[in-house]
């Protein structure tokens, strides 16, 4: 079947099989930041935005994205670098495999809630697993980013 969607700002039309999942679709389009980490919708590595909402692309049929807007990290490079620098400053990116999914979900969190509490951060990102970092360094980076963003806002 044919689907048309906007991927990272570009409108594309493709022929897909009905059971193709969005994860494979976006990787086929060169969006390699989106990773597969499990088979059971548990790990969060495949997080993309569907109409600006974070979802698991492994669990969305590509056909479901027809007529809608899909965003991956490839389309958010500036935001990813800006926030990611704070993770990098902690050394908390480690192997990096969980980072795109986690950063995408963190960006979604900041959009919904620019000053989340620690508990709100942990809850929002609960679906993003990491095995390398113990999460503590990621939390330091997130808190530093929030403080920096707030200070920026004040200066502006």
């Amino acid at each position: 079947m044919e689907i048309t969607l906007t991927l990272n700002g570009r409108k594309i039309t493709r022929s897909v099989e009905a059971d193709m999942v969005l994860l494979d679709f976006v990787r086929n389009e060169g969006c390699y930041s989106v990773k597969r980490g499990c088979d059971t919708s548990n790990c969060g590595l495949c997080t993309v935005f569907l109409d600006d909402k974070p979802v698991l692309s492994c669990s969305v049929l590509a056909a479901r994205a027809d007529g809608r807007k899909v965003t991956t990290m490839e389309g958010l490079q500036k935001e990813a670098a800006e926030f990611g620098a704070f993770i990098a400053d902690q050394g908390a990116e480690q192997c990096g495999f969980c980072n795109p999914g986690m950063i995408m979900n963190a960006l979604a969190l900041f959009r919904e809630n620019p000053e989340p509490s620690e508990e709100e951060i942990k809850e929002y990102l609960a679906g993003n697993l990491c095995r390398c970092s113990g999460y503590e360094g990621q939390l330091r980076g997130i808190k530093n980013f929030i403080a920096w963003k707030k200070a920026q806002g004040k200066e502006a």
Partner: protein
Amino acid sequence: MKIVNQPLRKKDAMQLVTGKPVYTDDLAPKDCLIVKLLRSPYANAIIESINTAVAAKVPDVEAIFTYEDVDQEGKRCTYAGQTYPEPSPYDRLLLDRHVRFVGDVVAIVAGRTEKAVDKALSLIKVKYQVLDAVLDFHTALDNPILVHPEKTWEALCPVGADNKRNLCASEVISDGDVDGILADCDVVIDRTYRVKAVQQNMMEPFCTFCTIDTYGRLHVVSSTQIVFHARRIIANALHIPKTQVRVTKPRIGGGFGAKQSCVSEMYPAFVTWKLKKPSKIVFSRHECHIAASPRHEMEVKVRLGATKEGKIRAIDVYTLSNTGAYGEHGPTTVGLSGHKSIPLYRTEAFRFGFDVVYTNLQAAGAYRGYGAPQGIFAVESAVNELAAKLKIDPITLREMNITHEGDIMPAYYGAPNTSCALDKCLAQVREMSGWNEKFPVRHMPNGKVRSMGVAIAMQGSSIPYCDVGGATIKVNDDGSYTLLIGAADMGTGCDTILAQMAAEVLECDFAQIQVFGADTDASPYDSGSYASSTTYITGNAVTACAKKIRAKICELGAKKLECAVEDVIFDGKFVRSTVNDKAISLADIAVASQCFNNIALQETVEMGSLLSPPPFMAGVAELETDLLTGETEVVNYYASVDCGTPINPHLAKVQTEGGILQGIGMSLMENVTYSPDGRVYENSLMQYKIPTRQDIGHIHVDFACSYEKSGPYGAKSVGELVINTPAPAIADAVYQATGKRFYTLPITPEKIALGEEDE
């Protein structure tokens, strides 16, 4: 130190946080054949017949390989990444008619699309002669059912292996009269502890792609920690010469030892070698749970004797280790269960014996700690039980008995304890955690209880008399350097810290060092990233190499300045004459090296070590427990680490935090259970639960560092040590909260609520 001991960003950090395509499956050519494996549903069976005719007819299927394509009497090999000759038995065949665990490989299918391959897999008809299986490692030794009855089974090293007894390794060592002293002790703690076959669960599954290169060789690109061993293993598995195999690694999404065995490489290697077409395999998470390389299940029996004043006199450890259906890392992991636990304490006598047995379960492998976590869970739990029995504070009891710098450690190969701040670690962790105010237990206003538990640990820094670290440095024509290594950065940041060391010696900016990762063609030989060897051994190779490069720079610089080489110095930017004003910049020297020159601005150093200086740490777990539901949470974990000099304090800290959380996962929620016919129940992330960020309060890490003279800038290691303290610390905190001791991990809410151990 300007660059070493600085918290610099990793060299690849920004590429990783912006999601660049730098992992194996991102780099695989688009036309790779998809390779998948048909796996045995039985724990022990012989394939009577296998019919692939219908499956082969599926459109887009290119090839199906079975045991019929592999010489069944051919030489076996091991998939373990170890220095040759490997202690692990040669018990593997690429495709074996005898399948030995649920998930063992039966057939390899290669096709142009995943759907075609899946269809073909479902159409392969296999007739099995199902055999009785050995599913309980307690019954494995001398069981009439043999996991490896075959004549072609081989043990290259004298590890006490005997396939006719299901024995993969066996040994006893002792020093002093253990039995006599224990009989004389006022108190003896005599307990048996059990740790299950938990999974590393790195976020990137096993994956490999292969191509045929310009020279007709097999080029294997894999998420691996061991490129050089992998070359040997793949050559052995395929029965082709090593000269025909090149192995390289891109960015790796975590390893923790899982990728210190070849788990996925052989299959696309075989396909590509046979078909001369590129192919790739990406393990599903399910496969990562049933046919991977998990921790060895171990049962560790400890007898620990002391005076009533708290002086530990003797420790006796016996480990029964379950290596599963194949012996990767079986003979070697078990040793650490004694050698990395007993030496923590000064004793009059010790004994350490072990047996490693085969069973028809998933083959175990290398997982961070490599036997130490199991042994330390046991010995540290026994010490905690001793403390309770003697009514002595567990930190104080340890302070009375721990090894100190300068000791000879009989249970650690008689090696000297060359650098040790363990006493400071204990003092620091007592302070950090508020131990004196909080131990043992407090009742909280929310109805829960908070309790504390402590443990100490050690590990090693490389395998002495064995591991080799390699470094090559060359000067580029702009005066920058390329550092070529054979060690594998799997997210740990070794590329970065090795570059930090080089930059320190070369007195240049960190940005001037480019790192080239592991490639069997171009890298200097390195055993690989395991055994916590990279910082210590490869680091020593890097610093030695950088010093040699300095000498070369001076040599060419002096030549250009027309000075004697004794009359120049190099300050990182210029070679300067000490007898006159002349100077030449590094960039100019580099340019000069590329025109009518026979002084190579390139050096290679290979380094081994006769020492493996232990890093040490102390950890305190603060638990909050709901005694009625049994749910417990680590609200705080405090750690004080002596890794020698931390080359990059941020990376050392994050390694510690990550290792601690893996230890917590192993203690509280990562469980492995089997069906009666040997199937793993926890075969997905839905069933096998690793900690999420909601499963931990805060981890607090600080450093109390000794200075290891034999290490680069005083460094030892940190990579594995950090997983060792949580299990015993948590187990004792649970005891303080409930009055109940648990000897089998994980300690689940049910056990806490009902006060009952596993059967």
